[in-house]
C-alpha cells in the first residue's frame, strides 16, 4: 500500500527551506531504508525544495512511498525555465545574489538531482511554473 505526504513550500522562505526534506529523511530512517539510499533521496529532494524557495513563488511537494520506490513530485508556481537543456548544464544558473549568499545558485542543483535519481523528469512552462518527478528505488534496484 502506498503512503502519500504533502508539503507546501513558500518562495523566498529560506528559514524553512529543507523542512520537507528533513521530514522525509526521518521517515525513511524509521522505515529502515539503507543510509546510502536515504542520502540520494534527500539530496534530490533538498536541491529541488531549495529551487522552489530560490526561484518560484510557491510550490507543493507530494511524496508517494511504496514498498519499492519513492516518487517525489514537486510542482511550483513561478517563472518557469525557458531552456531546460541549458538549465541542466553544470554551472548555469539564473539565481539572484541573495540566493547565492545562501550557498546555492551555482548551477549545480539540477545536475545533482539527475546524478542521484533513478528517474528524473522535468517539465516547465515559462511564466507558469516547473514540475519535477524524481523516482528512487528504495532497494537499490533499477526503476
Amino acid at each position, binding site marked *: 500500500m502506498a503512503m502519500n505526504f504533502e508539503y507546501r513550500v513558500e518562495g523566498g522562505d*529560506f*528559514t524553512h*527551506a*529543507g523542512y520537507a*526534506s*528533513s521530514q522525509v*529523511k526521518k521517515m525513511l530512517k524509521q522505515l529502515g531504508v539503507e*543510509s546510502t539510499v536515504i*542520502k540520494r533521496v*534527500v*539530496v534530490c529532494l*533538498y*536541491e529541488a525544495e*531549495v529551487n522552489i524557495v530560490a526561484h518560484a513563488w510557491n510550490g507543493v511537494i507530494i511524496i508517494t512511498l511504496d514498498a519499492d520506490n519513492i516518487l517525489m513530485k514537486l510542482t511550483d508556481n513561478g517563472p518557469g525555465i525557458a531552456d531546460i537543456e541549458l538549465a541542466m548544464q553544470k554551472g548555469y544558473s539564473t539565481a539572484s545574489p541573495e540566493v547565492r549568499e*545562501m*550557498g*546555492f545558485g*551555482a548551477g*549545480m*542543483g539540477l545536475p*545533482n538531482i539527475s*546524478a542521484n535519481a533513478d528517474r528524473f523528469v522535468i517539465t516547465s512552462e515559462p511564466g507558469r511554473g516547473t514540475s519535477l518527478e524524481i523516482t528512487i528505488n528504495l532497494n537499490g534496484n533499477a526503476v
Partner: protein
Amino acid sequence: MKVEEICSVTNGELVCGNATADREVTHAFASDLMSDVLTVDCSNLLLITGLANLQAIRTAEMSDIDCILFVRNKSVTPEMQNLAEELGITLIKSPATMFRASGELYRAGMKPLF
C-alpha cells in the same frame, strides 16, 4: 581526530555538541557552496565553511555530516544552534580563515576527500 582536537588546532570554540565524544572525524571538506557539499559522499566528515546560516546546518543534515567548523569568526545564531542541537550536529567556531583552518587541520592529520 576528535572534536576536542579540532578546537585546539583551529583555536576554535565549541558552540554545541560534545567536545570529548569518542567519535573520530577522519576527513574534511571546505566550501561555502552548499551544492558542492551535497555532492560529497563520505561519512565521518568535517565541514569547514564561512557560510553561517540555517542552510549550512540543513545541508549537513542531508549530507550526514556530524560536525561543522565555522571560520572567520562567523556568528552562529540561536536558530542555527537550536537546529544543530535537535539534529545532533556539533558546531565549532574559529577566528581562523578557511585557508589557515584547513592548513592547520591538514598538518595535524585530517585527510582530504581527494
